[in-house]
Structure formats: C-alpha cells, structure tokens
C-alpha cells in the first residue's frame, strides 16, 4: 500500500466517525505522523461546510461558459448592433489583428436550411469580390461548429435610416437636423407623423451627393454581376465624414420566399422594393430593380416621406404597382425641377423607363449638383399617357400586350457629360439617315427607332447602352450595326449599305412573332415580340469567309484552324469555325447583314409550330437526323487532338458541308440547314447570369457535332443555351447571318 493509499483508506474510515472519535482512530490507524497530519488536514477540509464543487462546472463557471458562445473563430463578440432577416450583427473584436469588426451570424433557425446557408455563403462570396470605397468590405466568411458568420469592416456612424428618423423626430432625438425650422408640404396618409421636411439647397445637395455616391457603389457592384436586391436606408451606413457605405449585400430575403399573405409586421423591405421585385417573379429582377429602390431612398431623403405606403404588405405592393407617387415638389417646394425629374425617373414602374444603369443615375445627380442640365427629360405627353395606361392596366387587369408594343420609349438624353461614348460615322454616305434603337438588356427587344441628327460625321455622343444602329438610304437599302457602347469609347459606324435584293439571296424571310398561333405557350411567349427578319439558310462556309478576308475592308485575320491564309483543300463548303464574335459580326456587316438574336434564331429553327427538333417533337433517330455525337464514332469516345493537324483532320472528318445535299436530312421547317448539330452559331444576344447582363458574352445557339452522346437529353432546339466569350473562338462554333425586314418598326 502506498502512502497515498494509506491516507485515502484512513480518511474514508475516519470521515465516517463522529468528530470526537477521529483522533483516537488515527493514532491507532497509523504510526506515521506525516500521514496522520495529512489525514487530519483532509478531514478539516471536509468539515468546512461550504458549497465547494456542489454546482456543476458549467454553472459554477458560468461566466467562462457564457464566453464560449462569445467566441467565433478569432472574433470575440462584444455587443449586438443590428438584426436582419438572416441573422444578427454583432460588434466584435478580432483578437488576432486587434481591431473591431462587424460580425454577422446566420440565425440559428436557418442553419438547418442548406439553402439559407448556401445563399449566406454565396452572397458573402459575391460581396467579397467587391472592393469599392462605397461598399463595406468583407473580411472573412467561415463556419465553425455550425455557426456561419461573415466578418466585415465595422463602420462607425449611423445608418441612413436612423438619420432620416432623427430628421423626422428632431425634438425627440434632440438631433442636429439641418434647417428643419420650416415645414413644407402636408402630411400624407403614408406619413405617420407630421414631419418637418428640411429645406434649403444645402440639405438637398447633401442628399444628391449621398445618393450619387451610393449609385456609384451600385454601378460597381452591378458591373461585377452583383445585384443588391435590398437597397434601403438601413443598409446604407453613413460614416462620420458623411460618406455612405452600402452593406448587407443580397443577404436579405428574396421576396419569393416571403409570401405576401404573411401576417404580422410589415417587412420594411417592401417599402423599397421595385414593382417587378414585389411581383414575386424574381427571375425577372435585374440591376434596374436596385435603381428603383435607390430612387425610393432618394425620394424619402428629399421629402421624409416614402413614395409608397400602406399598413399591410398587400397594400404596399398594390400602391407600388398601381400608383404614381406624389411629386416630390408637392411635398417639399424647395426641390428643383431637375432633382424632381431625376428622382421620378428612377421610380419609373417599368425598368426600361428608368435609368438603365446606376452610372446614369449617378451622372444625372452630378449634373444636378454642378448645376448643369440633366440628361433625363421630364415625362412627355406620350409617357404620361402610358403612365395612365400602366395604372389602368393594373386597375382593370387586362393583359400587358395592349401597351407593350406601341409605347416602348427610347427616352431622350441631352448629351452632356464628357465620358459618354462617341459615334463616328465618317464612312457612311451623306444621304444616309441614321437611327438608333436601344436594345433592352432585360428583354432583348429593340426599342423604338430614334433618328440621330448626325452632321459632319461626328463625333456624336450617346448614353452608354446596347444599341442597334440603322443607316438607311431607302426602304430597300439599309444596313444594321449592333454595338455595346461603353463609357469613354469611340464606335465607328461604317458598314456598307447594300440593296436588299442582293443581300437576301439565300435568306429566308421569317414573319413576325405575332403570326405564330398554334404552338406551345412556352414558344409563343418567346417569339411574341419578334419583328419580321431574314435569316441565312445555311451556316457561313469557309469559301464565303475567304471572300470576305480577301476584300478591301477585311480587318480580321484568317482563322487559325486553317493553318494558313486559305482553308485546307476540301473545306470550301464546310462551315467556318474558330472565329470570334467580332469577326463573325464584321463578316455579316460587310455583306449588309447582322448576326441573329437568340430568339430570332430559335424562331427560324423551330418553325411556325415551335418544334423541339428540326423535324418535329420526337427525339427519335437524333443521330440520323442531325450531325451530332460524331465523336462517339471514335473507339474511345472523344480524345483530345494531338496537334493542329490532328485537329484539322478531326474537324474534316466530322463536320458536314453547310448546305445539305439530301433534301430530308438536316433541314428544318423553315428550310434552314444544320440548326441542330454540325456547328453551333453565334448570336448577338447578350448572355445573362442571374438576370445580370454579361456584356462580354454572347448566347450561342444550335449544337455541335462534338456534343457528347451522354448529354443527349440536353440536346434540342429549346434546351439549355450555351454562351461564349466575345473574344473566344471555338472549333465547334460558327455562325449564320440575319437581317431585319421591318427595320424601323414603330418609327
């Protein structure tokens, strides 16, 4: 028995004895004084009747235990600073870098939802891509033991929402609201308190500067493919220097997940939603939704009144979709007309009527701030009529088609800012009339033609955007040029104008989409807005492309696949491939044509009945009827080509001539060859990713000979669409051309 064991055993026996018998027991039990002494001490400790170890550790050291939750990664939570739909935001200390951060933690009840986590993470990623002085930067996203968090810069200051609130209740808050002495305008129904609207140029200019700065930040985000979706005063932090910082990127709930029938508090978000967002069809929501929301913020800042209101979500949404907001000047007379025009322009119901980019919005606010004329026009008579119709449409619930066709407006700008793109038209004949049709980035539809009063060959400034320019000598002699105009860019309009008769040989005339009657609804919806057009029966061949290369106006180089200045023997009738979008476009314009839109291509390929395949709706015998899956002929399916020559052999082996010699084979309902299979084809339609236009990518239609047979189910004329970088040439990618038949439709 060790000494410790003796001590233990003596203690056990002694402790069971009455106190006065213990000493005697000890002297009997051990002759080692040290052992006895130790047992005595233990007994004394035992007799100290206190609560030692009576509580479990977690309770006893509750403060320590509590701090467990207060540690997330290297961040120590200090206090709660805000709550949002997806979680709580804390002020926290980064214990490694010793700085303050704002820590957003995904709410516990959402952790079970993979979707919520996915969105939390994805949006953190999106925001992390953004680095802009007007956007609160994200430091880190992580997950620890089931806690998902985003660490971001802690911005001292107040939210715009708090700031506006303190202006609304200056006495309650005792704030330093500027110039609130004069109340202007009357309280409206949507205005719970009689607010003192700040007047004075200084305040209004402050608002203008603030919103312009937010618009700059939004523009930056939009260009990086991020839509905020929840622009509202509480997501705009104003730092002590008065600079706005946009935060909470896309973290807020999507409207589709928040049914309108929900009872309880009015979600603040509805008050700042765009009509299209509130319509809960969030697939149609693009960056212009943010522009609307920012318009609401501007409106509120200028008038301390929200443009749309109601006591239930339904009422708000109704007001949003059917009512024109009161003019800001009726609420605050010190607002100038230009500022009013800007504000209401951002608040247009239809995205196409708003500023098309946040940059436009910002630029106009800058014009106002500088005292220059603004670009947006107050709505004219036609617009007012349409506004009326718009309202009526909702009121009497008739379909949208009545108005959509005739009143699409390209609004006029006064072209003033210096960084607007320039048009140079020196090469066009003097007698040509030049028109511009802005292409709606959302719908792809070309707007109403606007005649450009060109003189002396330019430069002529345009607002940035996607346009189709038309140079016209007569009804049967015109050309089209589709261009994306970016800031600080010069664009030359110099396509040859050729007679229609000459151009449209070997083209098929496709009537307007309105003439399609007996087809699946999905198809009718897609082709409805199309105007009549011509389209090439065949893909462009190597021989045709060589003619272009040999012509005077030939800028592009020979396609690398040729391996020289001309195509390899036997390739004359094979489709041209491996060229960029710009090269394909240059070819089309040289011939007086253009590239088709994606939907035009689809209309031509699917025919009047909207077939899913060139021969009908039955995918049977796909391999026989379309030039696809050719790679499967190889013993080991696809193998990468060994070198250039191998690639050429490969191509030659599987690609078919553009014009099919067999009448029943490879030809679709409108007599177009090889729409499905052979080579895919460029279109001029800009690809959208989550409703955001990706200016540098175009939709590619059809499919290629090299499509892997395992993807059979994806293969149809109505299936998923491919897309390609404008600069990216591909061996499976060629093109065919189109031309508008009704080029000045609606003019």
């Amino acid at each position, binding site marked *: 028995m060790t000494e410790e064991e003796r001590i*233990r055993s003596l203690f*056990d026996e002694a402790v069971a004895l009455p106190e006065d018998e213990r000493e005697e027991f000890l002297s009997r039990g051990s002759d080692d004084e040290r052992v006895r002494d130790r047992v005595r001490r233990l007994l004394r*400790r035992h007799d100290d009747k206190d609560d030692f170890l009576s509580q*479990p550790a977690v309770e006893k050291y509750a403060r320590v235990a509590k701090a467990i*939750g207060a540690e997330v990664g290297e961040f120590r939570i200090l206090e709660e600073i805000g709550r949002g739909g997806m979680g709580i935001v804390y002020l926290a200390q980064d214990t490694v870098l010793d700085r303050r951060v704002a820590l957003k933690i995904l709410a516990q009840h959402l952790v079970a939802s993979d979707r919520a986590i996915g969105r939390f993470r994805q949006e953190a990623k999106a925001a992390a891509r953004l680095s802009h002085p007007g956007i609160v930067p994200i430091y880190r996203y992580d997950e*620890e033991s089931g*806690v998902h968090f985003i660490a971001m810069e802690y911005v001292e200051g107040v939210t715009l929402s708090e700031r506006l609130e303190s202006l609304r209740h200056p006495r309650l808050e005792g704030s330093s609201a500027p110039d609130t002495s004069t109340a202007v305008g009357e309280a409206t129904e949507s205005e719970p308190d009689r607010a003192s609207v700040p007047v004075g140029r200084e305040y209004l200019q402050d608002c203008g500067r603030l919103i312009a700065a937010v618009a700059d930040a939004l523009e930056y985000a939009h260009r990086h493919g991020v839509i905020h979706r929840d622009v509202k005063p509480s997501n705009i932090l104003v730092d002590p220097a008065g600079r706005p910082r946009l935060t909470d990127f896309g973290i807020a709930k999507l409207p589709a997940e928040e049914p309108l029938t929900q009872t309880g508090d009015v979600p603040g978000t509805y008050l700042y939603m765009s009509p299209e967002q509130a319509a809960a069809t969030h697939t149609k929501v693009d960056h212009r939704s943010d522009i609307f929301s920012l318009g609401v913020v501007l409106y509120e800042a200028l008038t301390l009144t929200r443009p749309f209101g109601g006591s239930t979500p339904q009422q708000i949404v109704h007001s949003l979709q059917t009512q024109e907001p009161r003019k800001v000047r009726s609420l605050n007379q010190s607002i100038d007309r230009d500022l009013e025009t800007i504000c209401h322009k951002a608040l247009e119901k239809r995205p196409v009527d708003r500023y098309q980019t946040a940059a436009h919005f910002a630029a106009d606010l800058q014009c106002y701030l500088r005292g220059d004329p603004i670009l947006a026009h107050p709505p004219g008579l036609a617009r007012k009529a349409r506004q009326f119709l718009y309202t009526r449409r909702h009121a009497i619930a008739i379909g949208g088609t009545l108005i959509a066709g005739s009143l699409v407006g390209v609004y006029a700008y006064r072209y003033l800012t210096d960084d607007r793109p320039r048009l140079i038209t020196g090469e066009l004949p003097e007698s040509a009339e030049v028109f511009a049709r802005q292409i709606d980035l959302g719908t792809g539809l070309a707007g109403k033609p606007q005649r450009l009063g060109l003189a002396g060959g330019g430069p002529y400034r345009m607002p940035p955007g996607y346009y189709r320019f038309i140079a016209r000598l007569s009804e049967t002699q015109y050309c089209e040029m589709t261009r994306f105009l970016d800031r600080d860019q010069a664009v030359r309009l110099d396509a040859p104008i050729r007679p229609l008769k000459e151009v449209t040989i070997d083209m098929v005339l496709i009537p307007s989409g309105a003439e399609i009657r007996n087809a699946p609804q999905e198809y009718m919806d897609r082709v409805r807005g199309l105007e009549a057009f011509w389209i090439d029966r065949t893909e462009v061949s190597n021989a045709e492309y060589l003619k272009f290369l040999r012509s005077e106006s030939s800028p592009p180089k020979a396609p690398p696949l040729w391996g020289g200045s001309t195509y390899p023997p036997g390739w004359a009738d094979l489709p041209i491939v491996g060229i960029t979008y710009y090269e394909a476009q240059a070819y089309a314009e040289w011939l007086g044509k253009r590239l088709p839109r994606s939907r035009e291509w689809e209309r031509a390929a699917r025919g009047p009945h909207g077939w899913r395949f060139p021969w009908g709706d039955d995918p049977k015998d796909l391999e026989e009827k379309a030039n696809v899956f050719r790679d499967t002929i190889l013993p080991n399916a696809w193998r990468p080509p060994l070198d250039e020559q191998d690639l050429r052999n490969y191509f030659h082996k599987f690609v078919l001539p553009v014009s099919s010699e067999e009448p029943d084979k490879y030809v679709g309902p409108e007599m177009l060859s090889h729409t499905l299979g052979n080579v895919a084809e460029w279109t001029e339609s800009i690809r959208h990713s989550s409703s955001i236009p990706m200016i540098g990518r175009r939709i590619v239609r059809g499919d290629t000979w090299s499509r892997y047979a395992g993807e059979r189910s994806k293969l149809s004329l109505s299936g998923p669409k491919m897309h390609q970088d404008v600069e990216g040439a591909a061996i499976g990618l060629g093109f065919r051309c189109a031309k508008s038949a009704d080029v000045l439709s609606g003019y």
Partner: protein
Amino acid sequence: MKTTGEGVTTLLLAVHQGRPGAADELLALVYAELHGIARKKMTQVPRSDTLQPTALVLEAYLRLFGKTNPTWANRRHFFFAAARAMHDILVEQARRHASRKRGGNRERIDLDEGAIVASQSEELLALNEAIERLEAIHPRVAKIVMLRFFGGLKHDEVARTLETSSATVRRDWTFAKAWLRDALGEVPKHPDPGKPRKT
C-alpha cells in the same frame, strides 16, 4: 460532417471493444457537438444566458444519437466523452481569458465582466491543475470528479457509468472534495506541503 445515429453507435462499440483511437474520435465528436451547442446559444433569439450542463449534454446526446436507443454500455462511453469534452471546452476557454488578462489586451468595454471572467478563469485553471494531480494518484476519483463536476451527472448515474456502487461513488466524491480543497488551499501560498509523492 455530421455523424449521427448509427455512426456514433458504431464508434461507441469501437470504444467498447478498445479499438485504438476510437476513444479520441468519440471525444472529438462529442467535443464538437457540445462546443457547437454552447456557442449556438449566442445566435439564438432570445439568447439564453445560462448553460445547464445536463441540458447541454442531453442536447449533444440527442443530436448524436437521434432517436436510436443505445445500450447502456454505449451511453457510458458517451457520458465519459461528454464530461471530458465539457472539461476541455471550459478549460480551453478559461485559458484564453486568463492569457488575455496576462497579455494585457486592452478592454474598452465590459471591464467588469472581463475582470469576473478572468478571475473565474484563473480559479478554474487552478482547480484543473489540482484535478490533474489527483488523477495521477487516484485515477478513479478523478474520473468521478470529471463525471460529476463537468458532466453534471448525479451519484447514481456516475455509479452506473463506472459500473460501481453508489456508496463507492459517494465515498470517492467526499474524498475528492477534501483532497482538492486541500490542494487548492495550499497551492498559491507556500511550497506545497500536500504535494503528493509517490513511494
């Protein structure tokens, strides 16, 4: 990675059969669960201010086992792991706070709270040192401290877990308290007369 139900049962069986590394795996698993649960209290609305050890252990238990009903043998291993994990979590946390205090990290807010946490942390660390010494001499006694104090188990549960009698547990517990108090009482002041020596 989520291990629930059968996964845990298999792991417990492995612990039971003495598969090398299984106990560590189980500990890591339970640790993660408990830590997660404790931490998640922060993100709950309304935030819960107190942590009940048994509630915590129970929650971890439910999360790990789901609706399966493990054998008592399995539960034993779980309770060991849970108590150990709880101990590790608390001690780890205490170390951070104690070191923070020593490191002179400036605290601008929550000064009082910080001071309390720091003093509790030091106390807990001292206790932990004492328990470690106890473990070297009386491993079974230390186990009981672990189960009762950190695991929050009651005497009879401890007895079942250790497959021993309630009376033994009671005796060990009595001894443990006296021993630890003694060790704690002496440690900071003088060279430790009660410091155990092996013979």
